[in-house]
C-alpha cells in the first residue's frame, strides 16, 4: 500500500497544475495572468502549453485511475487472504458475527460477504 501511495502521489503531482486560460486549446486574445489564477486556486504550478492542456486530459485521469487500480488489486489480495484464512478449514482468523452474512444454502455457514464484495468490486473498477 505504501508503494500504491507513491503512484497516487505521482498522479497527484501531475494533476496539481492549473489548466485555466487554455480555452479550447489555443489560448485567448486577452492579457490574462494564468499564473495568478493558478496561485489563487492553490495549484503548485500551471500547465504551460495550451494545446497540451487539452491533450493531457485523458492522460492525467488515466494516471489517477491506474494508481486506484493498484490499490484495488492489493485490497483484493487482502480480501482473498482474509476469506481463505477465516474459513472453517483454516481458522487462522475470526471475524465478528455482525460483519458476516449468512449463506444461501448452508444455514450454519458465516460468509464474510464484505470481503467478497471488495474482491468483486476490484473487477468492477478494472472494468470501468
Amino acid at each position: 500500500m505504501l508503494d500504491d501511495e507513491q503512484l497516487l502521489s505521482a498522479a497527484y503531482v501531475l494533476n496539481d497544475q492549473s489548466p485555466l486560460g487554455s480555452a479550447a486549446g489555443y489560448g485567448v486574445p486577452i492579457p490574462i495572468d494564468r499564473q495568478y489564477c493558478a496561485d489563487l486556486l492553490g495549484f503548485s504550478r500551471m500547465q504551460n502549453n495550451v494545446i497540451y492542456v487539452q491533450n493531457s486530459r485523458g492522460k492525467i485521469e488515466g494516471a489517477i485511475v491506474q494508481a486506484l487500480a493498484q490499490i484495488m488489486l492489493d485490497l483484493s489480495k487482502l480480501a482473498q487472504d482474509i476469506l481463505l484464512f477465516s474459513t472453517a478449514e483454516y481458522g487462522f482468523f475470526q471475524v465478528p458475527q455482525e460483519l458476516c452474512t449468512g449463506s444461501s444454502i448452508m444455514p450454519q455457514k458465516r460468509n464474510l460477504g464484505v470481503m467478497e464484495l471488495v474482491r468483486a468490486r476490484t473487477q468492477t473498477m478494472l472494468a470501468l
Partner: protein
Amino acid sequence: MDFQETKRPFMEALDIVQESLQICTLVVSVLHVNSERLVAACTYELFATDRAYELALEGHMPFRDAYRTVGTEITALLDSGQPLPVESQEQLVLRLAARSHLGGAGNLGLTQAHNRLEEVESVWKKRVETFTTAIQKLVGIEKM
C-alpha cells in the same frame, strides 16, 4: 480521442476505492487472530528446507545435495506412513525467529514501514491544507 464519457467511470472508481478502503480498515481492525491454529499449522515438513540449510551451514554439505538428502528422508517417512517428528511450539517459534534478516518473519521491519507511513501522512496533510486554505481564501471564509 474523446473524453466526454470518462467522468462517470472516473468518479465511480474514486467511490469504489474509498468505500473498499473503509471496509477493509474496519474488517482488519476487528480481525481476531487465532494463534493456536497458526502454530498448529506450522508442521514439521513445512520447515524441511530449514534442515537442508542446517546441513549446508553446519555439515558443510553443498545446498543442492542437502536439499536432496532431506527430501529423500522426509519422502520416505511420508511414504511409509510413519508420523513426522513433532516439534514443540518453542522450536517452531525459534524457526520463525531465525529468519532474522530484514523483512523476514523474525524481523518484520515494521518500524521502517511506520516511519514511511508517518512521512507520507504529513505530505498529504500539507496538500490538503494548501488546497483548503486556497479555497477558503477564494470564497472568503476564515480558516476554522
